[in-house]
């Protein structure tokens, strides 16, 4: 029986073979004769077991005809809760998924569901890695297929899923986000089926596990807002606003209860791929000012060139604000700043809808800013983009400030005071921590439109707001002293 060369990964001409592919293929070559019965009765040594697992993984992924016998062998020989096997699939997903050929790809998803059935060690991580592999802004068939497969697997394994809050809420985060893009696409039988799966999954999770959904925090509201046009979500919104008790969760009686909860950072990794994350981290850690041009062109070509792909800019901005906080050394070095990269991303939005969502993504942490639980590094990029654009790029300063005030007034009209307090708190924290020396740079800027200068002044010195803010600070320092988790104070020395 011959194995075709490269049955696992697709290689373009002149492309180097991947290390993982090489080691799996090598293990298979060594042990393939032992993969048929009779299976040895002796217990393999750890290194023998590792090699056997790799050989089995290779065969399971590339030889679907032998699935039944290989699975039997896997179940019979697993002595580590499938740890090595699942880790192998996890490494493959994290490092090679885009290059997987169609057969191994299908097998990988199949194996994932098999591992869920046996509650394999680390299968939760595997599912989360696969969720990350659903590319944002990619409406090609293989990507939509992956989305549907994962929705089906998770729906079919509900009993397992409700005992895995992290996977459950991560999946909800992902499908809510994808649904916003999929719903706007032109219909078709495959797409309609996918939308139905996504809607059904999300509503089921929200209606049955709302206590777990709360753990997602304030970005859950951001995601739900884009789905208001979907009838099932309109109903959900009605209940959220008018009948919160329907969700039966103690501690949830109003949207403010959700606004108050900061979304844990790991959720923002879910919507950017592993490669995108590596490239963004590289750009923001190593590339010096002036040199970023080439990298930006390559990034845009790879991720932002297809129609509709700019939707992912929202997720990139959330990632940059929340998941990448540069060290003091990097900030003081000549490496390109986050605000500059975000400025480039905002400019890359071709349509108003995406640009508005991108700006909301940039300012979202301002709206509910609480100095005791939120990090100054979440809100720093927006402030620096605003002030650094003075005086050469005033249109950016104007655009961002206008947007900020628009959002304060209109994001949640009934809870406008909460949002105004949040934004005021953000401005105050930015000055207090030295991100900007003071807001004079804006208020005394004669290039800034008089309308915006007045609006800013009025906002900052609104007596009602200021006194409420003082009350909140007193409340926070009194009740929450012990809850101030040691968020490292990022004291910058701004030149």
């Amino acid at each position: 029986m011959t194995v075709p060369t490269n049955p696992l990964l697709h290689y373009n001409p002149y492309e180097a073979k991947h290390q993982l592919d090489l080691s799996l293929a090598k293990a298979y070559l060594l042990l393939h004769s032992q993969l048929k019965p009779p299976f040895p009765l002796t217990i393999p040594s750890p290194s023998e077991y590792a090699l056997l697992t790799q050989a089995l993984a290779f065969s399971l992924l590339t030889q679907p005809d032998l699935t039944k016998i290989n699975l039997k062998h896997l179940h019979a020989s697993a002595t580590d809760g499938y740890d090595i096997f699942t880790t192998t699939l996890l490494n493959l997903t994290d490092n090679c998924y885009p290059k997987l050929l169609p057969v191994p790809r299908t097998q990988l998803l199949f194996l994932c569901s098999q591992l869920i059935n046996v509650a394999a060690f680390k299968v939760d991580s595997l599912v989360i890695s696969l969720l990350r592999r659903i590319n944002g802004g990619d409406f090609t068939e293989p990507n939509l297929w992956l989305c549907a497969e994962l929705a089906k697997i998770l729906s079919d394994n509900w009993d397992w899923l409700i005992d895995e809050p992290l996977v459950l809420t991560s999946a909800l985060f992902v499908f809510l986000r994808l649904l916003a893009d999929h719903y706007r696409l032109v219909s078709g039988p495959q797409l309609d089926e996918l939308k139905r799966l996504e809607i059904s999954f999300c509503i089921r999770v929200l209606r049955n596990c709302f206590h777990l959904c709360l753990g997602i925090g304030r970005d859950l509201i951001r995601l739900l807002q884009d789905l208001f046009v979907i009838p099932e979500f309109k109903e959900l919104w009605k209940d959220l606003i008018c009948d919160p008790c329907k969700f039966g969760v103690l501690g949830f009686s109003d949207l403010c209860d959700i606004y108050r909860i900061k979304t844990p950072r790991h959720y923002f990794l879910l919507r950017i791929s592993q490669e995108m994350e590596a490239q963004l981290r590289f750009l923001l850690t190593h590339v010096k000012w002036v040199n970023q041009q080439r990298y930006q062109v390559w990034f845009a070509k790879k991720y932002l060139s297809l129609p509709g792909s700019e939707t992912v800019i929202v997720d990139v901005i959330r990632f940059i604000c929340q998941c990448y906080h540069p060290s003091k050394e990097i900030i003081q070095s000549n490496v390109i700043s986050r605000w500059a990269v975000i400025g480039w991303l905002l400019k890359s939005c071709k349509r108003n809808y995406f640009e508005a969502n991108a700006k909301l993504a940039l300012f979202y942490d301002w709206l509910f800013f609480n100095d005791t639980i939120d990090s100054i590094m979440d809100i720093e990029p927006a402030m620096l983009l605003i002030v650094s654009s003075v005086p050469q790029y005033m249109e950016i300063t104007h655009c961002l400030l206008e947007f900020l005030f628009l959002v304060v007034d209109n994001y949640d009209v009934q809870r406008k005071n909460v949002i105004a307090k949040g934004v005021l708190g953000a401005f105050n924290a930015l000055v207090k921590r030295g991100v900007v020396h003071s807001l004079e740079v804006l208020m005394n800027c004669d290039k800034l439109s008089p309308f915006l200068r007045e609006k800013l002044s009025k906002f900052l010195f609104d007596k009602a707001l200021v006194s409420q803010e003082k009350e909140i600070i007193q409340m926070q320092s009194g009740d929450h002293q012990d809850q101030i988790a040691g968020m490292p104070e990022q004291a910058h020395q701004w030149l």
Partner: protein
Amino acid sequence: MQKQSWMKLKDLTPAASNSINATVILVEKGSTIEEGKEKTKKCVALVADETACVNFQMWGAECEAFHPGDIIRISKGIFSRHKNKLLLRAGKRGSVEKVGEFTMLFVESPNMSEMRYVPDTNLPSKLVPESQLTKP
């Protein structure tokens, strides 16, 4: 088999031997032209590492295989004069393959293809860039 030693582009000197082993990133790619009766495809790209950049000649299928942002490993390549241009290429006995994307720092000067090379003061048989000429 000779052990491969990896070098930085700043240490490139023209030679007839295929001994260049380097990892570079493709910065910019020129257009592909077809030459001669057989319409052999040729294309020149700017490749670079942290120390320098150089003009890299691609032949045939190589022209379609590599794109800006690709990290390329050149083994047993040649850096020599071809039609009065100093070019790095894989050559007949060398190889070139893509090993990654994006995550490599680079500079766009000096360009070793534009260097003037002169005999080394102390070892006249060896060529060095004029700027690196050591005092006798």
